[in-house]
């Protein structure tokens, strides 16, 4: 199944390039403040990295990542005046200021004697006339896309002051066939839709995959042998195991932030309650005890609290409790029903699905329930997942009519919504943590 070098630690060696131009902080002003909400994208010139087709492909991926973020506007290469022939030399800043490129990216890709790829880039502040950063990476040639994402992350971080999220992956449910006989497989891809591959290949119904914090495992639900249960999949080996030995259907799993526990729902007769299982000791702990449907649990990033949905009050609403089940309290009070709460990796917001007036929306609220904001509304939007920097959400959308669900991303401003390309229908996306 999985035979990628993706999960091997530190396959990309990174280094800093010496700054060509001494830093002159007084005039360096290229910066995007994400907290300002809806910002005008920053015009940036991303030149083809030197030496051949691979250099061009890497700079194209960098440009596509930055453009999709909605924070950058890569300038059409046809407008470029200066042709970069030596990426170690300072560019002619005037040529870039004329086309209003506020930032400039130059780079070079070469092959080392040992076969490794060496990729270097420099980010320039054209109006200040300074190099903002310069880095180099060594990796195997087949990992060229990953290097491009790492470079895009470095540029994003240098200019926004926030960690990037481009060097990440997404697990999801790949769907095919008609609605009445839909085939579903677990699949994984890069966050931009590239390198998609199946993780399971059977006719068993599989749902709700979620990454472990170290990205080595996925927990998900499978109907294998008509016994709907939560499973654990080791990505490196493809090994699968049932999580726990529960007397009924287990579903809606998610890892604790330390990766030591899986939290999930157990169905018994008409009731669903929330349990955790410690993956080392295999002990299980019951956290809720109601004659209701308690499901979709999600830990706060510090592991101290759990958001979940419950219909104990009559319809689905979001609740928060301590990690030991204490202090259960409802936090959603708007018009409609609320479900699939997911705590932001930053801890500041909880994303959710909201049903109201026959429509399905994706929104966010603060952990105390205040500050609700709807980001997108339509026939059917469901199942948000956070980018590791807590600035972008991915979710799935089913439009009215025939066809199936597709993945979309949207930033917290609600203005930058983008389809995420997948080969067929797709649902239940789960964004990986950042690859350190």
């Amino acid at each position, binding site marked *: 199944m999985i035979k990628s070098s993706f999960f091997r630690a530190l396959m990309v060696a990174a280094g800093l390039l010496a700054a060509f131009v001494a830093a002159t902080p007084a005039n360096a002003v290229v910066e995007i403040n994400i907290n300002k909400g809806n910002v005008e994208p920053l015009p940036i010139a991303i030149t083809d990295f030197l030496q051949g087709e691979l250099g061009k492909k890497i700079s194209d991926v960098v440009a596509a990542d930055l453009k999709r973020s909605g924070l950058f506007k890569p300038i059409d290469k046809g407008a470029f005046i200066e042709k970069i022939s030596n990426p170690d030399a300072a560019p002619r800043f005037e040529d870039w200021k004329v086309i209003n490129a506020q930032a400039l990216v130059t780079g070079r890709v070469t092959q080392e004697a040992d076969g490794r790829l060496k990729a270097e880039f420099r980010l320039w502040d054209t109006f200040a006339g300074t190099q903002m950063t310069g880095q180099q990476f060594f990796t195997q040639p087949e990992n060229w896309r990953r290097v491009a994402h790492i470079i895009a992350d470095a540029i994003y971080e240098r200019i926004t002051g926030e960690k990037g999220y481009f060097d990440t992956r997404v697990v999801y449910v790949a769907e095919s066939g008609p609605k009445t006989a839909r085939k579903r497989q677990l699949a994984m891809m890069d966050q931009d839709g590239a390198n998609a591959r199946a993780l399971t290949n059977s006719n068993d119904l599989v749902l709700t995959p979620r990454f472990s914090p170290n990205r080595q495992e996925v927990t998900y639900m499978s109907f294998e042998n008509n016994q709907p249960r939560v499973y654990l999949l080791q990505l490196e080996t493809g090994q699968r195991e049932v999580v726990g030995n529960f007397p009924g259907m287990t579903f809606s799993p998610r890892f604790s932030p330390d990766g030591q526990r899986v939290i999930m729902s157990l169905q018994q007769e008409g009731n669903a309650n929330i349990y955790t299982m410690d993956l080392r000791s295999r002990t299980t702990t019951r956290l809720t005890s109601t004659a209701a449907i308690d*499901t*979709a649990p999600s830990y706060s990033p510090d592991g101290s609290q759990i958001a979940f949905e419950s219909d104990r009050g009559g319809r689905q609403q979001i609740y928060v409790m301590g990690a030991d089940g204490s202090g259960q309290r409802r936090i959603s009070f708007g018009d409609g029903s609320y479900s699939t709460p997911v705590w932001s990796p930053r801890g500041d917001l909880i994303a959710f699905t909201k049903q109201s007036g026959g429509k399905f929306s994706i929104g966010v609220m603060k952990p105390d329930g205040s500050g609700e904001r709807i980001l997108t509304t339509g026939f059917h939007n469901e199942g948000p997942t956070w980018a590791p920097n807590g600035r972008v959400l991915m979710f799935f959308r089913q439009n009215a009519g025939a066809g199936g669900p597709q993945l979309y991303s949207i930033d917290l401003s609600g203005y930058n919504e983008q389809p995420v390309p997948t080969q067929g229908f797709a649902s239940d996306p789960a964004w990986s943590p950042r690859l350190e």
Partner: protein
Amino acid sequence: MSRIDTPAAGRMQTIARNPVMIALVMTLAIAGCASKKNLPGSAGELGLGGAGSATPGSQQDFTVNVGDRIFFDTDSTSIRADAQQTLDRQAQWLAKYPNYAVTVEGHADERGTREYNLALGARRAASTKDYLISRGVPANRLKTISYGKEKPVAVCDDISCWSQNRRAVTVLGGAGM
């Protein structure tokens, strides 16, 4: 990586976009609901009784002459009056043919979220099972399973389909929990 601390951005501009316009586009996009229907064809699929020539005691007899499924109201798990009649027939049939164990499959329509609908389907299967037990079917012959909203039988974007997908289907044999 060396960072240059910069004063507040001077060049970035904020533009005020009009949220009303965006809401309008959304409304238009969902206005054109398709009305293509893919309805179950036979009386058996619909769970209706009918004059069948099925062998008494066979799967076909159960599906066609007894009715293998009942339907639910939105977000509801209570057994409707019409469903009670179907389940009464099922209980009588199962009493007559005691060699069968059955699985009750619970389903939800697609107008809900995935996790909740798994639980809702389970709740419907459980209430159906409880009703059959109340009509004398031994609990040890009954298993349940929920498929949530993942196995619709009718595909369209209105209540004519959703109401058929909110169902509990009694399957002879089957493989629930």
